[in-house]
């Protein structure tokens, strides 16, 4: 299925969970946060949360800034 991941269009397998996406991106264990269609997806729900077509997925982390 087609989604937008951090602004870029991508294909993801149907029914992929947030946990699985994080694994694919090799971000497991990293300090990140996820937003889907403007709403936060709490880390505690990654395992249950499955994406839907055209989801706008944003995954962020902290970097240097002032």
């Amino acid at each position: 299925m087609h989604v937008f991941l951090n602004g870029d269009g991508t294909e993801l397998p149907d029914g992929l969970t947030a946990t699985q996406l994080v694994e694919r991106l090799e971000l497991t264990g990293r300090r990140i946060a996820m937003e889907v269609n403007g709403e936060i997806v709490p880390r505690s729900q990654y395992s249950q949360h499955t994406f839907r077509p055209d989801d706008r997925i944003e995954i962020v982390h902290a970097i240097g800034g002032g």
Partner: protein
Amino acid sequence: MNTQPAMQTDFTDDSFELAGKRYQSRLLVGTGKYKDLEETGRAIEASGAEIVTVAIRRSNIGQNADEPNLLDVLPPERYTILPNTAGCYTADDALRTCRMARELLDGHKLVKLEVLGDPKTLFPDMVQTLAAAEALVKDGFDVMVYTTDDPILARRLEELGCVAVMPLAAPIGSGLGIRNPYNILAIIENASVPVLVDAGVGTASDAAIAMELGCDGVLMNTAIAKARNPVLMASAMQKAIAAGREAFLAGRMPRRRYASASSPIEGMFV
């Protein structure tokens, strides 16, 4: 917050309180513009800062999977991490950024709000800033807010429930120092929350001047990160903040146009 004591004598504890927590260091630092994470860590160590700002960006930006993350270098157990909304131009973007930050930091409520009005001057858009501040406070955040040096709007932001007001001394990254001390002073005199000068400091004396005005602290990034020797400048800033604070508490001599001899006149033998 103008806390000059009539005649304080014990300065062993001169900490200040921010969002319910006390801090010894009145120097807050950013983590941007450094050569690498190693330099970032050494400079922040040398600065003695307890509160450090970070930016929230997409996970595919700014590092490779095998690199350590900024928060490994700055463990939240040791530092108060202050996520900012740098780069946001609307209240809504700022709100989303703060929520991401809260999730990222396990419910951490302290954020630095900045809503910009212009990519050239990076001056805040005060209309959007007021809207964002109100929404963030409602949503339970402890909001430290980047603002112009307008004393009326600074007080308004305090009324909205911000935990600190952070007027700019000069444009972000300009290093021009405190352009309008009168306004900063007016903000301090009217405030009952901490006033932190944010942005515009260029060198140590600028930081000392800010503290001599009675600010509770100073937040800076470029002045340290873009010095020829960032680690040494970080050390200079730590000392300058302490010097300016002590000078404020000590109460400076009056200025006078004419001279006044330091050695007595009487007793001259020549």
